[in-house]
């Protein structure tokens, strides 16, 4: 049994987001709008030892199964995380998050003069122009966006 399993209890149904880059756990909660209001049990573990001299964050959300949109958000915020879907104590699906070629309507463009931030009915689309370096570009105003400063819809 791994050390992390000792810290966070097993869940019956829900999602375990593991290997979240250390320090990103709270941002993941914010991005996925996990705030506990649904009444589900949510377990958050920060700075969990993971391998030699490494640390990670873990989030377990009971009775909620993460969807693809959520996985896309994770790909930007915590690119090393894994999504484990648990049903009846069994791991039924394990997903590595991966950056899509484009990201739609998750983040707002950080350029205030971008048409996607106007009153027009339009949602942002960002092209991932460098997956390894995590470089996003707004498809409309073509600005390069700072991933750490992006705001969610």
């Amino acid at each position, binding site marked *: 049994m791994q050390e992390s399993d000792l810290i966070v209890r097993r869940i019956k149904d829900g999602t375990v987001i593991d290997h979240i880059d250390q320090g990103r756990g709270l941002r993941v909660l914010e991005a996925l709008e996990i705030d506990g209001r649904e009444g589900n049990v949510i377990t958050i573990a920060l700075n969990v030892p993971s391998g030699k001299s490494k640390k990670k964050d873990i989030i377990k959300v009971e009775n909620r199964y993460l969807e693809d949109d959520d996985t896309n958000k994770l790909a930007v915020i915590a690119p090393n995380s894994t999504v484990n879907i648990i049903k009846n104590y069994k791991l039924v699906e394990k997903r590595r998050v991966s950056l899509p070629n484009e990201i739609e309507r998750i983040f707002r463009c950080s350029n205030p003069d971008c048409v996607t931030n106007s009153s027009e009915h339009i949602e942002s689309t960002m092209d991932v122009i460098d997956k390894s370096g995590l470089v996003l570009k707004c498809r409309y105003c073509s600005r*390069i966006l700072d991933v750490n400063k992006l705001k969610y819809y």
Partner: protein
Amino acid sequence: MIQSMNEFFQKDIISVRDFDKQKLESIFDATNKIIKLKPNDRREIGRGKTLGYLFYEPSTRTRLSFEAAIASIGGTSIGISNISSSSTQKGESLADTVRIMSIYSDVLVLRHPLDGSSRFAAEISEKSVINGGSGTEEHPTQAIQDLFTIKKEKNKIDGLKIGIVGDLKYGRTVYSLLSALSYYDVDVHLISPESLKIRTDSTYEIKKRFSFTESTDLEEYIDDLDVVYVTRIQKERFPDEEEYIKVKGSYVIGLDITKKMKDDAIILHPLPRLDEISAEVDNTKQAKYFKQAEYGMYTRAALLGLILNEKGF
């Protein structure tokens, strides 16, 4: 012989980033053809076609250039200029205005203060959309005009040393010009006040294709440049007037500067100018900005001709 379909037919012109050298060169070829055609033959190219323009910012110059261009190829233009923000608050969205205008016209030109506005309009419009200037982002037809001018006046683009002077942060023409130049083998020097340096979040992809130097000193390279491209430095970009006056003075092209330039160098400006080029420079042989304005009409006429005719002209 049947001519093959031209690649601009019914296409949008949104950003120079969507271009490459071959595309630019084919517009230049078409422009040379336009210039050579007799007025009567020229008027066949766009006969019966309507250009619709929507100008959400005042820009007499760009609008006139498009109107002259469509008229020169035998078409007509309709449109609205000075669509104020107050009337759009009460009235229609950009999307609806574009939809309506695309019913009345064969090709649209949009000038709008928001970045990305043209790409959005192109998604909505049934007809081709030409970006006539979007926010501080892009002004692709200006860049086409600029490069054509360089090519005509210097007989080449590759191998030239080009200085771009002035407000490089907010000047949309600069971003389009840099994108266009990045398809060529040129040396580019950017010269601007520290506070008006080019935005790095808009040059990421340009920098992958070529490199340029940046400095604040106009005179550093002046004797070595083949092209000096001057842009306006606008007062409203500065927090206080004193700073503006100080900065403005160091980027004025006067006879003292032109004397230091090569004899066969050329001075360009997207116009309208304020006092960044002294009037006395107009009579020097290096001054080519009025010629540039004339070429602008031809390049736009060529572009319209290509968009409107399946087999070119």
